[in-house]
């Protein structure tokens, strides 16, 4: 029953204060040490040092969590609680997150390396909004009444699945948790959630707020552990009725496979991308440059929808490249807690090594390093904003997801050809088009094989607009009304009123 407490004193320009909260395996509203009594180190990406150690979850902890989640679903959550009440609790949780927004932003910066500024302006703002958005849906989960014949009453119910497993990544730790738990709770499911072992702190901080908001114990259970152990255990668990995952395509396949081999649990996946960003001759150059920078350098390039393949039409190619390079050079790399920093370190050694190895492969395969391509600083995992040019379509840096601040800029002439090149990928998460001719933008948008197409913007989400992938970028949609489908199971009820057989 021994729980650990994480305490940290912040004394920075962006945040001053002490945070102190319980950590551990969070099941049934309480923290405990994991079944194996082992721990995972949480690393500070600015210096590679250990921030704290937290309990490691194991398959036995997953079993326990599922058992508790099932009990809670049957007795004190699910359809035992009217939608109006579920909505009230979600709104309460949103209020609490908002109240503690500064603390959360500091935690994200410490754990993930993103700047406090971006954590507040993007991660926290969207997290609060998404909780409130789905709070509003909770009492609006309608089925249909369907006319068939006079002697039949037929209607559908959109029922919660029961226990849902949710596995979230490290790039937007709190925001990914909010995107997952909000629609699941609104529709009446209970949850076993595995945060990333790289960035567990904000999820653990949420646990006390979930209790304070008034959710019955066991509604949300949090088990931090390794993907191939805890994530695998969840994917193959016979007691989990649905699994939702955000992460790499590689791992997404494993999850779907495990689901298929176990109990055919419903699967939604939000996976990787190599999203094309097409800048036409008639684009507003300054806007295109600014958005394109946001497209690949925001969040240090660690966004699934990053516009990492930048196609620029020949007539403005030189101007664009010059302005884009200038823009990239203007981005300030620095301490996540410094008020003027734009970009902090990449999240971990593993990611740093991965990205650097892609940069090396680009160099080796003959691409030109137009900008950057090196480590920034001598400590921590900073990588310079990097631009490759003179690439060919078969190069690894053009085909594979790098997940870092590395963009490839490719010249094109013909619109047909660029649409073909843009679609020539196994991914299909997002795409962007820059042009002053909106009609042209719409026509191109309609031909791009992507779940989100941005016209004259990029990397902008709204909690009420769906988001998700075509092709190998995913299955299902998050955000918007569409996400409700991920967490409801349709039951058709046929009431015979007179037909005899």
């Amino acid at each position, binding site marked *: 029953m021994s729980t650990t407490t994480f305490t940290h004193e912040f004394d920075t320009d962006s945040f001053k204060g002490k945070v102190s909260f319980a950590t551990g395996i969070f099941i049934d509203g309480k923290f405990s040490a994991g079944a194996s009594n082992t721990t995972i180190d949480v690393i500070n990406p600015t210096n590679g040092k250990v921030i704290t150690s937290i309990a490691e979850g194991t398959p036995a902890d997953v079993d326990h969590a599922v058992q508790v989640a099932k009990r809670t679903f049957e007795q004190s959550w699910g359809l035992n609680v009217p939608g109006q009440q579920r909505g009230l609790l979600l709104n309460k949780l949103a209020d609490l997150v908002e109240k503690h927004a500064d603390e959360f932003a500091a935690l994200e910066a410490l754990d993930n390396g993103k700047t406090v500024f971006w954590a507040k302006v993007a991660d926290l703002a969207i997290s609060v909004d998404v909780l409130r*958005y789905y709070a*509003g849906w*909770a*009492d609006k989960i309608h089925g249909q009444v369907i006319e068939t014949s006079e002697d039949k009453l037929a209607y559908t119910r959109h029922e919660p699945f029961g226990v849902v497993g949710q596995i979230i990544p490290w790039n937007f730790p709190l925001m990914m948790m909010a995107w997952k738990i909000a629609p699941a709770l609104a529709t009446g499911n209970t949850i076993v959630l595995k945060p990333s072992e790289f960035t567990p702190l904000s999820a653990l901080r949420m646990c006390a707020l979930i209790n304070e908001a008034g959710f019955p114990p066991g509604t949300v259970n949090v088990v931090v552990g390794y993907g191939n152990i805890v994530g695998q255990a969840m994917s193959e668990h016979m007691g989990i009725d649905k699994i939702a995952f955000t992460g790499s395509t590689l791992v997404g396949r494993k999850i779907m496979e495990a689901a298929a081999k176990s109990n055919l649990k419903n699967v939604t996946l939000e996976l990787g991308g190599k999203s094309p960003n097409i800048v036409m001759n008639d684009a507003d150059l300054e806007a295109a440059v600014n958005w394109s920078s946001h497209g690949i350098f925001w969040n240090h390039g660690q966004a699934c929808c990053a516009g990492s393949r930048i196609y620029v039409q020949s007539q403005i190619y030189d101007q664009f490249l010059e302005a884009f390079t200038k823009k990239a050079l203007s981005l300030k790399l620095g301490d996540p807690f410094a008020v003027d920093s734009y970009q902090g370190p990449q999240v971990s050694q593993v990611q740093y090594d991965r990205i650097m190895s892609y940069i090396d492969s680009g160099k080796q395969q003959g691409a030109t390093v137009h900008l950057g391509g090196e480590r920034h600083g001598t400590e921590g995992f900073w990588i310079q904003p990097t631009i490759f040019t003179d690439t060919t379509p078969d190069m690894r840096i053009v085909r594979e997801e790098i997940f870092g601040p590395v963009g490839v800029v490719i010249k094109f002439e013909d619109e047909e050809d660029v649409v073909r090149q843009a679609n020539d990928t196994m991914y299909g998460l997002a795409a962007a088009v820059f042009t002053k001719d909106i009609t042209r933008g*719409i026509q191109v948008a309609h031909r791009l094989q992507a779940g989100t197409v941005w016209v004259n913007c990029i990397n902008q989400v709204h*909690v*009420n607009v769906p988001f998700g992938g075509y092709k190998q970028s995913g299955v299902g949609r998050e955000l918007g*009304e569409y996400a409700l489908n991920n967490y409801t199971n349709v039951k058709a009820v046929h009431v015979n*009123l007179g037909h005899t057989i």
Partner: protein
Amino acid sequence: MVVQIAIPNSNSTVSVATGLFINNEFVPSVDKAEEPIKVYNPSTEEVLCTVTSASVKDIDVAVAAARKALKTTWGKNVTGFERARLINKLADLIERDAQTLAELESLNNGKPVKIARDFDIGDSVGCLRYYAGWADKITGQSIEIDRNMKVAVTHPEPIGVCGQIIPWNYPIQMWAWKVAPALAVGCTIVMKPSEITPLTALKLSELVKEAGFPPGVINTVPSLGSVGGAALASHKDVDKVAFTGSTITGRKIMEAAATSNLKKVSLELGGKSPHIIFESADIDQAANWAALGILYNTGQDCTAGSRLYVQDTIYDKFLSVLAGKAKELVIGDGFDESSGGGPVVSKGQYDRVWNYIDSGKKEGARVVIGGEKRSTPGYYVDATIFADVTPNMKIVKEEIFGPVLSVGKFHTEEEAIALANDTTYGLAAGLHSTDSSQCHRVSTALEAGTVWVNQYNVLYNNVPFGGKKQSGIGRELGSQALDEYISTKAVHWNYGEKLDWPL
């Protein structure tokens, strides 16, 4: 222009601003053309205060304020997220002030404080929160026409400036039902509360300002129906009128809308709702629901189950159980904890209800309980049950709007349905039976916008409500209420089709 009204059994007062609430300020009438309205306490028959009565010119000012807000700070100028935030804030403020609002409601309307607080206001807060939840979810459609040539999208736009005219039976709750969906969609409002019960609408206006709504989004103009109500219904710059009240007035509103600018109209009107007790019913439970159906809010409910039809095999037994239930309800002062119901709202209503009771006696119906006036002050009408009624009696055909029930008898299910549907109204109906096939057959056959099976008078903010036949046009509550405030614009965007000319 602020009065202090004493709260009974306490040393405190509640303040009420008595001007017209326009552009977030309480202002006097521009021309003082109308006599101030005297506002009464129906328990004591005394005047609580007077409030400004809006004239036709004041209505013009209010409409202009609403129009300006629609064009500048509301309508398409505000996001669904912001509308949600403000409506939720308003709900929080009403919840914060629930006790004070309940006391004011009770003083003006007569209903018990605890019922005003826990039911009227509790449900109103829920209603605002429900529609706050819709505000950022109002979507149009994108419709595939021709991939190479064009696309069509629909935009759900707010209808515009809405005149809302609400009654005196549930002043706060009717305010919430109207205001919430209109705001969620982005409409602006000129709200005319009943001249009999304007006080809580004025008090709620203070909270509208405190919540942070831009000036002009909601304007409150107490006025006589024949002045302010008529002016809104016929106003050339009002895009839609929503009215809850009598069918007679509803007709006038629709007529004024037609002859002025063809503004959109939604109406929630009267009823003479049938309540059917089949022989298989749980007698005790059915009697509870039947009592609720006619005595809740002292019968001043558009859905009152005012025509009870009991199957002949259980008629006498049921009537006797029901009479017992009716006698258990304490009708008294709203500030008395033991009161389950209060007086009727006004002298006018008091006289009206008693006229109907007299006509019932004159036309030969049998008084089972009630039917006798009290000798003490207050517009009290005690529960009155008439038996041995025939379909042509006034008390069976016309809406009484008081705690007066007529109980008829039937033999077969078909007869019950025929009796139930034999009315120009169609607001609600109820039936009690433990035969589920019968429940389905009868609920399918009843011509009413709401049918209660084995219950009565229970509504939910997420289930639509409204009348068939002459009980109304349109629906409130649920997602359907949003449709009443949305005007769809279809945009056909051509980017590929060239037109050959001449044809």
